[in-house]
Structures are given as structure tokens and as C-alpha cells.
């Protein structure tokens, strides 16, 4: 698949946190979920991609072009939804749109109006009076009205109710219907990604831990449940995480065949993205 965004050896050091050789690429026609706990480096990575913080080293390419050398051209094809909005709340929706729209060469007023209508927003309303959900929808309307090829969203679902989150997932799926589009979506609410993500990138303490196709990731791992009598020194090693209680055990494995062979009577389920995330960053690594 053709990459739309390539991040290579991105490093950024603060006093008490650093991004360490962050490397990944986003493919066209893919929704990539960028997951990690609070403070793991998701926002820092996104800000570095957008040039909002200065990287210490590393290369970022958009559609094959170096983003530092082609900043305006690249940003013209990127839609952004930032976690805190960063809107001038003093302005109305129309005024803020009038500030943002002229910087995009392909701004499409008809598309913007359609989104405003679809989201039931009022253009003469002050941004300060919008609810969190409405503000997110407005940010999405701004981000999708200039025919962007890549939509970068930083924690768009954080603090939103399930209905609005579900609406956002539908908007993203709708956006992806057009060929050549991509979404890069950071979140710590992983249930959203179960529904829509094609790729999962997991970051922890500034390091990329997992970078795989979601289905492959979920297929290669299994959530195993069973009686404690199956757990012994040999079987314990099959698990990435293992929790035991008086009623039985529950663990995540990447060695499904071995588990089936050595523990034939246990229950094997497809894990969720959250199970995988907690496996790699939860600190309960039991077997290895």
C-alpha cells in the first residue's frame, strides 16, 4: 500500500519525557488508530507532525514530500481536529470559518454548509457557547471542507457521550468512502477503534510498541479463560499477561496453537483492542 505519511526516527526530548525514535507510516485508504495511555506521547507525536513542536531529529514525509520543505503544500491536504479545539471562542462559527477557509486553496463552501446543516450547527452562534460534542463536530466540518487527503485527529472522542462518538465514527467511515483518503486518529478510548480502525499503532512512554493491522493483531492474539488447574510452569510461559483468581484465570496469548495443544478445555476469545493495549503497557507481563 502507498504511504501517505511517513514518520522516521522522530525524537523530541522534554525535561521529563521523550519521544524515542518514533517510526511509522500511514497507508492510503486506511484508518489508523494511535493508542496509548495519557502522557504516552500521542499528542506530542501529532504536534511534531504538524510542526507545532520542534523535533530534535527525524524526518516526516507527506505524500513523498518532506514536510519541512513543503509545509504549506502538505498542510493544504491535511485536515486537523485538535484535542482542545484551539478556537478563538470570542468569534462566531462563521467568523472562525472566515479565518480558516482562505488558507486552503481547495476550500469548498458547499461541503462546509452541508456539514453545518448535517450537524445542526448555527453559524451565528459564538464558539464559547458550543457543547464539547458540537465543538468537535464543528472542528470536523472545518477539517473536512477543503478536500483533505489525510485527517489527523487528536483525542476527538475524549469526553464525548457514546451517541456523539458513534456519530463521529459514521462521519469518518463516510469520509473514507472516497478513494485515497486516510485518517490518523489518536485516542485512549479503544472501543472506538474496534469498530473502524484498519491499523493500530500503540505508543508507550514515547516508544512505538505495536504497529500492525488491527485484524491481524486481533487474530494473532487470543483472550484465554479457564480453570486454574491448567496453569503450570510450562503453560504460564504461553501468556503475555495472566491474571488468576480463585475462580479461574484469564490471559492474553500470542501462541494460540500451543495453548490449544496444551490446554484443550480452555475458552479462547477474540480480544479487544483494549485487551491488546493493556497487555503491552499494563505492566502485568507474566510469562516473559
Amino acid at each position, binding site marked *: 500500500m502507498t504511504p501517505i505519511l511517513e514518520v522516521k526516527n522522530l525524537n523530541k526530548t522534554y525535561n521529563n519525557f521523550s519521544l524515542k525514535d518514533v517510526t511509522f507510516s500511514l497507508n492510503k485508504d486506511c484508518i489508523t488508530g494511535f493508542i496509548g495511555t495519557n502522557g504516552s506521547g500521542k499528542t506530542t507525536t501529532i*504536534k511534531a507532525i*504538524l*510542526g507545532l513542536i520542534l523535533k530534535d531529529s527525524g524526518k516526516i514525509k507527506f505524500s513523498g514530500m518532506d514536510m519541512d520543505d513543503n509545509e504549506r503544500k502538505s498542510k493544504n491536504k491535511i485536515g*486537523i481536529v485538535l484535542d482542545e479545539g484551539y*478556537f*478563538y471562542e470570542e468569534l462566531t462559527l462563521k*467568523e472562525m470559518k472566515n479565518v480558516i477557509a*482562505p*488558507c486552503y486553496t481547495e476550500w469548498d463552501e458547499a461541503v462546509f454548509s452541508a456539514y453545518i446543516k448535517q450537524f445542526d450547527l448555527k453559524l451565528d452562534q459564538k464558539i464559547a457557547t458550543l457543547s464539547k460534542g458540537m465543538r468537535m463536530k464543528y472542528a470536523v466540518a472545518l477539517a473536512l471542507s477543503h478536500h483533505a487527503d489525510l485527517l489527523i485527529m487528536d483525542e476527538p472522542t475524549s469526553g464525548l457521550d457514546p451517541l456523539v462518538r458513534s456519530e463521529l465514527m459514521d462521519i469518518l467511515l463516510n469520509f473514507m468512502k472516497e478513494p485515497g483518503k486516510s485518517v490518523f486518529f489518536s485516542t485512549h478510548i479503544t472501543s472506538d477503534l474496534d469498530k473502524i480502525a484498519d491499523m493500530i499503532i500503540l505508543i508507550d512512554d514515547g516508544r512505538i510498541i505495536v504497529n500492525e493491522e488491527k485484524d491481524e493483531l486481533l487474530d494473532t492474539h487470543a483472550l484465554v479463560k479457564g480453570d486454574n488447574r491448567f496453569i503450570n510452569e510450562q503453560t504460564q510461559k504461553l501468556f503475555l499477561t495472566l491474571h488468576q483468581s480463585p475462580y479461574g484465570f484469564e490471559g492474553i496469548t500470542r501462541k494460540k496453537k500451543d495453548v490449544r495443544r496444551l490446554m484443550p478445555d480452555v475458552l479462547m476469545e477474540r480480544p479487544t483492542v483494549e485487551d491488546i493495549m493493556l497487555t503491552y503497557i499494563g505492566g502485568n507481563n507474566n510469562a516473559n
Partner: protein
Amino acid sequence: MLINLVLKDLMLVKKYLFVLLVFAAIGPIYISSKVDFNNGGLVGFLLTVLLLEYILFGMVSKFEDKYKGAALLCATPYTRNSFVKAKYLFIFVIFICSVIIHIITSVIMPSGIEKLNITTLGITFLILSIIFGILIPVQFKFGYDKTKLISFFTIFLIPFVFPAVIGWFQSNHISFAITFPFPFPEIIQAWIPCFLALVIGCVSMVISLKIYAKKDL
């Protein structure tokens, strides 16, 4: 594109803009009615423009600091450079508006206000350029809150430092009269403050661009 960012700054202060523009019209009239400096309206125009610019720039900076909108704008094709340049353009646009208001007022009320001459215009533009040429890079470097503190201490120190500086100049027999070493025609000499103001503005803008390019937003 820059003009849209200037319009954004004007929209942020739209509530106060009308009152301040009225102030730009009546300020010089009031000052010249109370005190006659006999200097072609320089003091009235200079004080009015300085106050107007300082208030408007301060308000815009307060909103920028509060909403952190720069992060969103710099993530768009506007980029950091446009954001910095727009701040200088904002100061210039307000100055041009003040000049236009002054000209219109002097046409409507010729008895209340002196006509703007090139010397008044040039000196005002030069002083404005020096003050904001320092203020804007300092604000990009240290942020709004620290700059407010620095401005406060600077204004506080002026009454103490200024007499000492003047005294030093006088004791060393240094004159303030502006004399140009080259025999420029009068018209060129009259435009020199404007030219200097533009040079100072450009140098300050280059410094601000370099400072802001290294900032984490």
C-alpha cells in the same frame, strides 16, 4: 492570506473597536484644545496613536494567550511565518486607519485639529516602529504574561531613568537636533523617519520570525 489574520485580530476586538476609533478621532482634538505644543499636532496624534495601538495590541495578545489559537492556525497552511507577519501588519493597518481618521477629522473640523504633515506622520511612525519593534519580539520570546510584567517595570522605571539620561546628554553637550550628514533634498529628509520606521519594522519582524520558529506551541 495575511489580511485574513489581521481581520481575525480585528474581529477579536470588534466590541471595543468602534469606541477606540472614535477615540482616534477626538483624542487629538481634545489634546490640542487643552495644550498647545505648537508642533504641528505631533503630540496629540502621537499619544492617540500610541495609546490606540497599545490597547488594541494588548487586547489581541490577551485573547491569543487565552485561546491558544496560534496552535490551530500554525497547523494550517498559514504556518508560523504568516502568524508573525500578521501581527506587524495589524500594527501597520491600525496606524493607517488612525492616519485616515485624522485626515477625515481635519477635513470635517478644520478648526479643532491641525492637518497632518509629513514630519508628524514620520516621527509617529518611527516611534511606533521602535516601541512595537521591541515589544513584539519580546512577547514572542517571553509570552504575554511576562511581557506585561516587563512593560510594567519599563514604564515604572521611565520617570527615574529618563531625567538621568537627559542630564547625561546635557552635561556632555549632546544636542537632540536631527542633522543629516548628507545634503539630501528637503522632501527626502522629510521621508527619512518613515524609511527608518520601515527598516526597524523589518528587522524586528526577522527577529520575531526567528524567535517564533523555535517555539513549541
